[in-house]
């Protein structure tokens, strides 16, 4: 593939909400007027300098933006590359999720909604939603798969501490996919009073577009910071983990028009782009892990945040036109990546981000001397209890 032949502009979907053939608005009739209202409200707000100023102030004074870049001198030397991290893990609440949640919560208030609903996998989006709700005086209900409640109990407690109600999703695989189903069912019943705060670049239009716009702050900052650090050059490679794909879309958006290789790393057990086929679930047409009859398959990943059988439609588009690539890594490689980053750099990454570390490690022999910008989208504190169980006393 010659990278010069692929499109190099960031798409703004039209009225049909499509990125190429992907996206759209496949929701129950009850929700269509709400999606239309949200689309209007977002476009107005995004073009309103007062709204943007209010959001920028919150991002700066509350979330702690801009997030810094950190060069991994030890790991870079070990791998024979120049490795630089975008430190979204240093944001308030510990991940990139706060970027979108602050935007969406402000929008919810602007729309006169008093209650927000959210789904969460690892709990990072749930914690961010509960945080924004506490700050802005909104009621907050978070749906979380029963399996995830088990493996992310720390985040469950954080959400409760912040005043949110956490409701277990007990259907299906009892993970992120089922939490989305429950949140959508709540929204169908509460659409007149509630705002559905989706945690990734997924769902019906305008969510994939809107969440990308809110997360594009990552890419904007990172491009400028990287050029300052590296004599005006862009990185050879930008890499991020992909579940629904919001942190990846956030950083990719800043480099779509650059001569940069964009790599989204999926978990082997939830490789929607890598192993899926086009399908429709959760309001969108996108790559999906499904059987021959269109039943959605259960994802299996060590990381709750990536345990999702679908992917945001813009990633499906970028994959279909060859602008981004979506390799996958397995759980064992992720565990090694997690340990490696901790020991080499003194940074404990979220298990989600350890997927990106694992890919970089594997790819290193082929990319000697190149510059790699990795989005470290969350910190690993939330995963420590789970890793204690997995690693036990194997650590010397």
């Amino acid at each position: 593939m010659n990278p010069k032949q692929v499109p190099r502009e960031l798409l703004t979907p039209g009225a049909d909400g499509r990125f190429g053939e992907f996206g759209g608005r496949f929701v129950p009739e009850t929700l269509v007027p709400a999606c239309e209202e949200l689309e209007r409200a977002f476009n107005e707000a995004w073009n309103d300098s007062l709204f943007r100023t209010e959001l920028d102030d919150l991002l700066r004074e509350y979330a702690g933006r801009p997030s810094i870049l950190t060069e991994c001198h030890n790991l870079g030397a070990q791998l024979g590359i120049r490795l630089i991290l975008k430190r979204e893990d240093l944001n308030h609440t510990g991940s990139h999720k706060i970027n979108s949640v602050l935007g969406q919560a402000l929008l919810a208030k602007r729309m006169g909604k008093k209650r927000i609903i959210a789904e969460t996998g690892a709990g990072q989006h749930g914690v961010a939603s509960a945080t924004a709700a506490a700050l802005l005086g909104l009621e907050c209900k978070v749906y979380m798969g029963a399996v995830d409640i088990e493996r992310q109990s720390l985040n469950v407690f954080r959400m409760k501490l912040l005043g949110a109600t956490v409701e277990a999703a007990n259907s299906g695989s009892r993970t992120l996919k089922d939490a989305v189903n429950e949140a959508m069912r709540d929204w169908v019943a509460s659409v007149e009073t509630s705002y559905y705060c989706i945690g990734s670049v997924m769902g019906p239009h305008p969510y994939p577009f809107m969440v990308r716009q809110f997360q594009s702050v990552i890419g904007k900052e990172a491009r400028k910071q990287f050029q300052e650090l590296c004599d005006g050059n862009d990185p050879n490679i930008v890499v991020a983990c992909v579940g629904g794909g919001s942190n990846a879309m956030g950083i990719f958006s800043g480099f779509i028009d650059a001569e940069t290789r964009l790599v989204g790393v999926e978990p082997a057990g939830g490789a929607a782009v890598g192993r899926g086929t086009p399908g429709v679930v959760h309001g969108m047409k996108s790559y999906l892990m499904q059987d021959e009859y269109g039943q959605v398959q259960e994802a299996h990943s060590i990381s709750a945040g990536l345990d999702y059988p679908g992917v945001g439609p813009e990633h499906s588009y970028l994959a279909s036109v060859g602008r981004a690539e979506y390799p996958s890594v397995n759980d064992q490689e992720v565990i090694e990546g997690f340990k490696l980053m901790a020991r080499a750099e003194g940074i404990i990454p979220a298990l989600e981000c350890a997927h990106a570390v694992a890919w970089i490690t594997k790819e290193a022999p082929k990319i000697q001397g190149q510059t790699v910008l990795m989005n470290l989208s969350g910190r690993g504190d939330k995963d420590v209890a789970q890793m204690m169980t997995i690693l036990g006393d194997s650590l010397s």
Partner: protein
Amino acid sequence: MKSAQHKPGALETRLRQTRDTGRKILVPYITGGLTGWIDAIRGAAANGADAIEIGIPFSDPVMDGPIIQMASEKALRDGATPISILHELRGVDVSIPLIVMCYYNTVYRAGHTRFANSLREAGVVAAIVPDLPLEESAHWCESADSTGIETVMLAAPTAPDERLHRVVERARGFVYAVGLLGVTGERTELAATAVAMATRLKRITDMPVLVGVGVSNAAQAQQACAVADGVIQGASVVRRLLEEGADSVAQYVGEVRAAIDSPVSSNR
């Protein structure tokens, strides 16, 4: 009120005739693939159902509450597939129309034309696709129309009048009035939105208007039928099939039939 611009298909013709004789229309919903589901169809048909809605189970039924979710999961665990369900339907010797309810990915995965053909070959005359709203429906409707499958559109309480007109325009078979803001499931009372939706729709169309979602027992069916041309009963039917079996469904359909055949009492 607007008359239909399209040529009514088999389902619509049948339901119009039923309505015009003064009979209220009763459509029970049965999840395909559950133990006893074929017997339940026969029992419902013999006890006063005017059509049957057969749900093809899907892994992620976002419009469905706990009962139909449970039924879908169970049917899928027992190995039900769209193909096995449509195959079994071919052998059902009932004289009332059969309607399929399925989520869009089932249709999309099979291919629009192939799916429409497979419905027709199984003797199904209409389809309800609850996550395929008007704006996304053009391609499917094209295949369905040309195959003679009537696509029933849902009309929701959140739709402004302007939208309701467009939904009704595209509806075939009948108009499905969503009775409340929420997913399928039994409620203790009929929501005020049920009658309100039927009233709004009856004002703008002469197609049959059936209320579904949250019509939970015979009394509620009777209340809804004070304005609507009929009702769809889902969770209350499926719960009986799950808990008590096909005979219980037949008996329940008979009860609802009796209730909607007698006019609602004025002193309730």
